[in-house]
């Protein structure tokens, strides 16, 4: 009977863990923001662009326009398909697959994100073969993790990355426990790393942990073979990522894919760009109003995650098989956390503001969940303590971010300023080039929720105000929008641009020089 009660208790905790994402998001939105999930309307830069990219995939698949900056397209553009911006297009494909089935409305991402988190947390105890104590720890960690509750549901693909981190933790635990041969679990792990690596290539570095030669740790040949396999896996993800990723041309990586220009400069003897990269990524305050200072503390926690396996090794005078498993785990943590550091030198901002948190948190959670299963939980109490102390600061920032993202009333009422004008951009099926179905937002960066009212089939490109006062094009995009008076004057003198109309602060031009034919007119 007692055993029955214990099992029922464990199932109840399991159910609570699975229900946690919905309960926390509901509580935050209703009781802190005093809004409802139905009020969700992407309003900030990234959520708007991501929503629109997915809307394009749902509407016309790869037949949409080009997303990106300064009219730079990804390599896939050579094949005549619309391509995506600096985040490539793989996570958008996953959301679009769901959107195709359930529809894609402004509030859909929140529900999809809750779904991802719920699925991952429901799987976790099973993958970890965990008991009540472990589930209790997870409940305490995720219930106090305001980042997961407040930020990830509104920011595609962060909920997806967070869910991937949780699933990876469970699968890696099985894989390492079985000495690298966990059958279907190991195969599932390889597939998950490959999929996750295509959406965010820092995950692909986990191939190095995956292929670690557990049974022949002292064999150089086994190591060489394992590293070759890992490199091949990483390269596969990297190429898949690059294929649809339009270059990000702004600082700190001007004019290049993944900071290659920085390293090309270094080879030419100019270390200035690399110094600027290090300063921006590790010493700068990129988003001063957000969590930068607190993030530095997070790095301390991450450092602690490195220390924990060592503590464990010392604590347990382990016999050979157990010691080998712990060594494998230690290696996993080094690779997992080290991949953040490695990625920081090629694209991501590791230690700055919310952007850094977006990169760091999933890897950190992945390591933490495995640690919680392998070391005594008392060693992880400082992580919970720190998270609780940081909660008020996170709450402050998240209320600001969430406050704008759950303001559907505001967004829809503001749409009167441009909706009619934007609807004049007509999608051209079978157009000679995706550029014909691209709207270029000229002269300003990050127009936020105005993006949401650009027809979903159109790709959106950003072009900042040109430094050259005599800029005269040519422009590739079929449609050009601006809300900057100075930029409009520039557009008026670019050959081939025809003024279509204006509404509020916005002006719309059609680019007759884009080679889209005479039928590319406004409706």
């Amino acid at each position, binding site marked *: 009977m007692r055993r029955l009660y214990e099992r029922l208790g464990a199932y109840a905790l399991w159910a609570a863990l699975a229900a946690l994402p919905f309960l926390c998001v509901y509580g935050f939105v209703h*009781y*802190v*923001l*005093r*809004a409802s999930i139905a009020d969700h309307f992407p309003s900030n830069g990234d959520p708007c662009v991501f929503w629109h990219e997915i809307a394009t995939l749902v509407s016309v698949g790869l037949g949409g326009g080009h997303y990106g900056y300064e009219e730079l397209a990804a390599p896939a553009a050579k094949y005549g398909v619309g391509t995506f911006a600096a985040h490539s297009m793989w996570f958008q494909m996953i959301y679009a697959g769901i959107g195709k089935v359930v529809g894609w409305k402004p509030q859909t991402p929140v529900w999809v994100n809750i779904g991802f988190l719920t699925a991952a947390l429901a799987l976790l105890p099973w993958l970890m073969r965990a008991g009540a104590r472990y589930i209790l720890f997870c409940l305490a960690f995720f219930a106090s993790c305001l980042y997961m509750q407040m930020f990830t549901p509104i920011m595609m693909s962060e909920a997806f990355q967070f869910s991937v981190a949780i699933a990876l933790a469970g699968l890696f635990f099985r894989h390492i426990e079985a000495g690298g041969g966990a059958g279907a679990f190991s195969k599932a792990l390889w597939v998950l790393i490959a999929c996750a690596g295509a959406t965010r290539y820092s995950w692909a570095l986990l191939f190095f942990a995956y292929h670690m030669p557990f049974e022949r740790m002292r064999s150089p040949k086994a190591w060489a073979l394992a590293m070759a396999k890992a490199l091949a896996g990483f390269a596969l993800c990297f190429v898949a990522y690059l294929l649809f990723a339009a270059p990000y041309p702004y600082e700190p990586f001007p004019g290049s894919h993944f900071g290659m220009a920085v390293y090309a400069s270094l080879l030419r003897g100019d270390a200035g760009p690399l110094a600027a990269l290090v300063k921006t990524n590790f010493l700068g305050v990129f988003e*001063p*109003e957000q969590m930068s*200072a*607190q993030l530095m*503390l997070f790095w*301390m*926690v991450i450092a*602690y995650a490195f220390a924990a396996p060592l503590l464990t090794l010392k*604590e347990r005078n382990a016999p050979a098989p157990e010691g080998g498993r712990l060594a494998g785990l230690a290696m996993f943590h080094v690779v997992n956390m080290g991949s953040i550091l490695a990625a920081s030198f090629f694209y991501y901002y590791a230690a700055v503001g919310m952007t850094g948190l977006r990169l760091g948190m999933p890897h950190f959670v992945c390591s933490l969940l495995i640690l919680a299963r392998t070391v*005594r939980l*008392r*060693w992880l*109490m*400082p*992580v919970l*303590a*720190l998270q609780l*102390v*940081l*909660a*008020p*600061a996170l*709450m*402050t*920032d998240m*209320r*600001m971010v969430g*406050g*704008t993202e759950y*303001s559907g*009333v*505001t967004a829809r*009422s*503001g749409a*009167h*300023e441009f909706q009619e004008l934007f609807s004049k951009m007509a999608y051209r099926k079978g157009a000679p080039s995706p550029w014909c179905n691209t709207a270029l937002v000229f002269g300003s960066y990050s127009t936020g929720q105005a993006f949401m009212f650009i027809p979903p089939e159109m790709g959106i490109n950003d072009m900042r105000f040109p430094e050259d006062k005599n800029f005269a094009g040519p422009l590739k995009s079929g449609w050009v929008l601006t809300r900057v008076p100075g930029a409009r004057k520039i557009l008026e003198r670019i050959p081939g641009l025809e003024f279509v109309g204006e509404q509020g602060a916005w002006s719309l031009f059609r680019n007759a020089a884009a080679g889209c034919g005479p039928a590319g007119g406004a409706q």
Partner: protein
Amino acid sequence: MKNLTSPRVWLPMLLCVAAVAAGLSLYPDFFLTVRCSCVEPFKSAPLAKGQLLGCSNITQTISWERSSNVTLAKGDVEGWDVLTPTDPNLPAVLAVEVSRDRDQAVWFPRMSGEECAITVLTEGNRPVDRLRGTAQWSPIGARRWLNLRCLRYGDVDHDDVVELIRIQMYGRWAQVWSKQGKVFF
């Protein structure tokens, strides 16, 4: 007692204390942050029957240059005006410069209809209060408290004496009541 001397017990405890101390050191005022982030937002008393105040000694100015889509009309109570959206399809922004010489102030919103909402934003566009309308008119004189100390938490410049508060109104029947050009009492 014997267990307490074991590093397996005191070392994790020491690490917890260190983590908490390190976290606390990041805050300029931890308790103010807790109050502004975790206590004030949950004080969501509905607009209940109240009483309009006779006068205000808070130095304040409505900044019409920074306001938009706001109309000032005569209220239903002698001596009081209502500020409301000119075009109900667009959000109205009422900007008020308030001297921050006290901790709390009272203001008088009034609404009718579920499409109505009022949001109070700091100068840095941080929402500090949000109200939504119901099918019924809220009572005249229903008070809303605003914690002025919380306005500046999280913003870069903490030393300004004058605070710019933006009140955004959505919907035809979203109102902020004022008397002799004063909104906060």
